[in-house]
């Protein structure tokens, strides 16, 4: 269970998720201090462990920096819920075992509000909105990706 932080715009890119000057930092806690700095510098204070980020489409576009999912996971984000993701962000999130990229349709994004309490039930492929007493379908992970998610990341996965 966690709360929603909603940033309703498309194409949130890695330069605003974690700006270039921080790329030299590899300490996860230090990176977390700058998560989403280009969009909302107060973001790290707002998030609690297990919260969700709900955004527009093509989340995480731009660079291949794994710093982006690391910083978001480290502040406490458990899953990002969006209509689509940029491909490297998506695979970094899954392969690093940092957080879940959850795909939903654009209509569902509209139904979720900032601060809603959600629960994700992966086995049922659905999101429960506790605040609104509603539920929404999520796009199932392809088979291999589901296995990597289960393993907790690519490094722990054995083909």
């Amino acid at each position, binding site marked *: 269970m966690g709360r929603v932080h909603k940033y309703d715009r*498309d*194409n949130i*890119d890695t*330069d*605003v998720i974690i*700006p*270039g*000057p921080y*790329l*030299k*930092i*590899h300490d996860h806690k230090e990176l977390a201090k700058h998560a989403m700095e*280009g969009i909302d510098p107060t973001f790290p204070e707002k998030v609690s462990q297990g919260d969700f980020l709900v955004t527009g*489409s*093509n989340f995480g*576009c*731009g*660079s*291949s*920096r*794994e*710093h982006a999912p690391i910083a978001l996971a480290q502040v406490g984000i458990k899953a990002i819920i969006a209509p*689509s993701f*940029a*491909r*490297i962000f998506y*695979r*970094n999130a899954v*392969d*690093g075992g940092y957080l879940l990229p959850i795909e939903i349709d654009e209509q569902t994004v509209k139904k979720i509000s900032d601060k809603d309490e959600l629960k994700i039930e992966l086995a049922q492929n659905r999101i429960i909105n506790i605040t609104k007493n509603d539920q929404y379908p999520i796009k199932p992970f*392809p*088979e*291999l*990706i589901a296995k990597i998610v289960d393993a907790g*990341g*690519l*490094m722990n996965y054995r*083909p």
Partner: protein
Amino acid sequence: MAGSTITEKILARAAGKQRLYPNDVVFTKVDKVMMHDVSGPGVIKVFGEWEKKGVKLERIWDPDRVWVTEDHFVPASDRVSAENVNMLSNFTRKFGINKHFKYGLGQYGICHTLSHEEAMVLPGELYVGGDSHTNTTGAMGAFAAGLGHTDIAYVLMNGEIWFKVPETLLFKIEGNKPPHIMAKDIILQIIGDIGTDGANYKAMQFSGTAVKNLTMEERLTLTNMTTEAGAKNGIIEADETTFAYLRERTDAKYAPVVSDHDAEYSEVFTYEIEKLEPTVAKPFSPGNITAARDLQTTELDKAYIGSCTGAKLEDLREAAKILKGKKVKIRTEVLPAAQSIYMKAIKEGLITIFMEAGAVVGPPTCGACCGAHMGVLGKGEICISTTNRNFPGRMGHIESQTYLASPMVVAASALTGKITDPRDVTN
């Protein structure tokens, strides 16, 4: 049954399959892998975590297929970046990786420039790099895709990685290139048309008479910016131009791959190059395009000629043609993309032209392209740049602005201090 595209064929060969179709998810063997001073320390951290768990890592899969660059934070911007570079050196020494292009030790430069300058990747190969613009090298007729550092660590240990086979969008660029048009104008126009997620998860393949007639370096500009459309890879079939370029750089053998004549493309787009205008992407998206002439009143603070996209030898030549014998009106920075290119530019007299025009010439580095160091933008500053991205804060302060354009447009704009079509400054 329809045939396969070059991307499908390279992936199938690397996966050991007869044939693959879009959306198949497979593990493929990797031919070449690259990491740099941003992704490298991440990889080293992953190795370190395994060693903490008691796993002894004494060798990697194949040190001869790995190369390492120092480009984002060189010359070291501070102590942290100096230590990152030291970490890389320790790692390459420990694992016997000989191709480590060190800053200040012979050839070095931006990873996506060395990949072609040093013929690190050959036609038909499957290449992955710890950087999103790894797509660039697809212009050599290879499958080239960017990955994060966990994936690169996995490749270093296992020599393989998973891919979902992409659908292919085919871009046919036809006609004779007008003298004021560069590959940058073509790719900006395409991104403007299909959007920054227009090729998400897909392959972008380029063909047509205009692409055939482009030089190798210009082709690399097309594939470089496929990343800005969300593409998994950009690719151009190798031909006589590719072979000639490689002959000057390597004796290595390779097996070029081309699409079947009846290959199936998910969409085909056709462009007439004669109809293109010198094009600029306005802040804050590479897809936010307009003609340079629409922005004639936009006042600038800086012109930047640098990066893997826009500081190859030909980029410098085109800029120098425009700047020759004239003076820049705004501060102008030129950073050749590799040491070898810098030296060729000196021999051709290009560096003298830049300096006599009043520009500063810096060492090869990513530096300001990603807002890291060596000339970042201050609050409210406006820059025109040969780079590939202009998201908020990309080149410095979150309230700075970057316009993306070809080296010709950037050079012309440097002379007037406003965004300028190159046709409006040439004699």
